[in-house]
């Protein structure tokens, strides 16, 4: 009896084994944002239609610091699956890409990728380890066009004009600025999206900051972002549930006119298209204004990348899928799914003529010379991990801006030491 069971088990195992040789299942990990999931589902479905022997299992991970932790732990325990969607820039560098991610310099799709993206997924040894997933983003402020029309407001070019608009909106009994500290990462925008204004005032800030020569607390231009957070709170412009509201609430508020402004990256447009399609053209966008109307420009984020963990057992299949994502067809499929949320980093991938209002507001910054600057996390490998808690504190009136900037400098120092950068030891 025992022998018969054993033989039956052996037979069962060999059936399973032969089935798995014929079909490859690629496991994909992405963040849980509606637009990421929609794009990934569309891409994998199209790829499986063309290659019936390759199927996908998509798993969603949390965003923010929880997501960073999960990705790092899985990579180091070699359990990160076959394809990983994750930030480019400084967060990519913190993954130790030379150890954890496969070299994608040689894959076919890389020929289509613009150099500006390659530079933010290049490991310390000069190899390219990712391909772009999604469109380049602007960091700035969404505004509700109906409220602006109703109150006769115009798009602000300086921070003072922005605050004057807020005052009028508040006087009209509306919420001027939506903030969503329930998702702590969303609290960083006023600081991070201010980087165009920082570099306009101090062109060498990124290099000096990386070399331990420039600090947030002692650079007035860099401090301004923290000050903005404090000012908006103190003036009472926020939604009453700012401490508990989440990203999805912020998107809803600005899309449906519950609030006039929401500081956010333009990837949120995908979310508006998925959840509030009827309001898509009620939402406009402007760059975070600085002190000088003549120097008004946009802070730009590179999209997240797709990577292949070094430990993946399906390197060839995963690379072929990534080449498809980096093709013009893959790019067009993403535009079809989420709408045109910004310029793509793929050669020959053009945006359609009828883009949503917020994208139409953003595109002029990209077309003119010197109107955009990359966010600091693409110019320096150091981003302090506690920034999102510190910005929640400033934005909730718990800690004054100057003290917060000094605190963030300490956090930055810790990260620089962990990365083993020169000039910090």
């Amino acid at each position, binding site marked *: 009896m025992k022998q018969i069971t054993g033989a039956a088990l052996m037979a069962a195992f060999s059936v399973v084994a032969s089935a798995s040789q014929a079909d490859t299942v690629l496991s994909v990990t992405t963040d849980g944002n509606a637009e990421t999931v929609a794009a990934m589902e569309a891409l994998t479905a199209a790829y499986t239609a063309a290659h019936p022997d390759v199927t996908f299992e998509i798993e969603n991970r949390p965003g923010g*610091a*929880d997501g*960073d*932790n999960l990705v*790092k*732990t899985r990579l*180091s325990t070699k359990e990160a699956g076959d394809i990983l969607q994750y930030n480019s820039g400084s967060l990519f560098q*913190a993954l*130790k890409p030379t*150890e*954890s991610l496969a070299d994608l310099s040689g894959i076919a799709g890389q020929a289509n990728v613009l150099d500006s993206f390659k530079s933010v997924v290049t490991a310390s040894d000069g190899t390219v380890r990712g391909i772009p997933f999604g469109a380049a983003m602007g960091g700035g402020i969404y505004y509700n066009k109906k409220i602006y029309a109703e109150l006769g407001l115009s798009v602000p070019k300086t921070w003072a004009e922005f605050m004057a608009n807020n005052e009028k909106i508040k006087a009209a009994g509306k919420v001027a600025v939506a903030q969503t*500290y329930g998702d*702590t990462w969303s609290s960083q925008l006023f600081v991070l999206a201010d980087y165009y204004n920082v570099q306009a005032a101090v062109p060498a800030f990124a290099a000096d900051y990386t070399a331990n020569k420039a600090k947030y607390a002692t650079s007035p231009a860099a401090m301004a972002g923290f000050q903005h957070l404090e000012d908006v709170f103190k003036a009472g412009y926020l939604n*009453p*549930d*700012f*401490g*508990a509201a989440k990203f999805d609430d912020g998107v809803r508020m600005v899309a449906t006119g519950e609030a006039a402004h929401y500081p956010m990256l333009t990837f949120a447009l995908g979310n508006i298209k998925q959840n509030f399609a009827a309001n898509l053209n009620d939402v406009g966008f402007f760059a975070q204004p600085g002190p000088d109307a003549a120097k008004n420009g946009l802070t730009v984020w590179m999209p997240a990348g797709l990577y292949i963990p070094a430990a993946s057992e399906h390197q060839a299949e995963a690379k072929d899928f990534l080449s498809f994502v980096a093709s013009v067809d893959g790019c067009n499929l993403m535009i079809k799914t989420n709408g045109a949320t910004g310029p793509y980093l793929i050669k020959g991938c053009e945006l359609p003529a009828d883009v949503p209002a917020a994208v139409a507001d953003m595109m002029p910054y990209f077309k003119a010379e010197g109107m955009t600057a990359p966010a600091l996390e693409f110019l320096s490998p150091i981003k302090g*991990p*506690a920034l999102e*808690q*510190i910005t*929640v*504190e400033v934005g*909730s009136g*718990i*800690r004054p801006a100057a003290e917060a900037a000094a*605190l963030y400098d*300490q956090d930055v120092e*810790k*990260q620089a*030491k*962990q990365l*083993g950068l020169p000039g910090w030891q």
Partner: protein
Amino acid sequence: MKRKSPYPYWFVLPAGVVFTVLFLVPTVASFWFSMTRWDLYTAEFIGFDNYTQFFKEPFLIQGLVNTLIYALATSGAKSVLGLLLAVLLTSGLWGQGFLRTVSFFPVLVSTIGVGITFAVLMHPTKGIFNLFLAQFGIIGPGWLTNPELALYSIAFVDLWKGIGLATVIYIAGLAAISQDYYEAARIDGATRLQQFWRVTVPLVRPATVTVVTLSLIGGLRSFDLIWAMTRGGPGFSSDVLASVIYKQYQAGFYGLSTAGNVILFLLIATIVLPMTWWFNRREVDL
């Protein structure tokens, strides 16, 4: 003369291997890793730098104070209210068995589930707590978004969730007290209150020791409920030692977070070891 055990020593081998592999080796290894700059791939020895860095951590002091407040508040409330509840539930009340079950039920529910549920109930504008208060025209506070209040709101939920266990331990302790003492006290003319103070409280001491020790240790290393409800926020205002450590781990500072864990281990040991020794000694005196 000590009698030789009839069993050979290698009977302990299976348990010994499990204990060594899963407890001893990681404990020793963590002392080593706490002195390195570790990124899970390479570990560079840096001596006590992680410890100096950890003590420089700006939120460490607040986290430490919060940990102590949280541990003392929850263990104090659990032992006092747990005893009162146990006395009530052993007094021959109608439906006593059912009420005991009800008071124990929250213990069985997942802590994360409880945390997420209460976070929804305590939402400043849409939560049931503040909607209820609004019925009476009271504008409820931001239970979890007010930095002054967040830690106490979590401690309240911890109490709700953990009091059932304390009550069960006290019920067992009360059952162990001989009725003769109460009879003697009644003959001497003691009131119910005197019986409680002079008979119940001293004789239920073994249960008190268990409840205080368990809930104090639980409070000192509490993490899951806090993380599910506020993630130490808003900002850093409900951070405790364990969440400060976890955030270092989250950020990829593995050596630093290991150093933090060593410190937490030493802290719990220095508080709990003398305490149990003191409690046990008093028990012998009685």
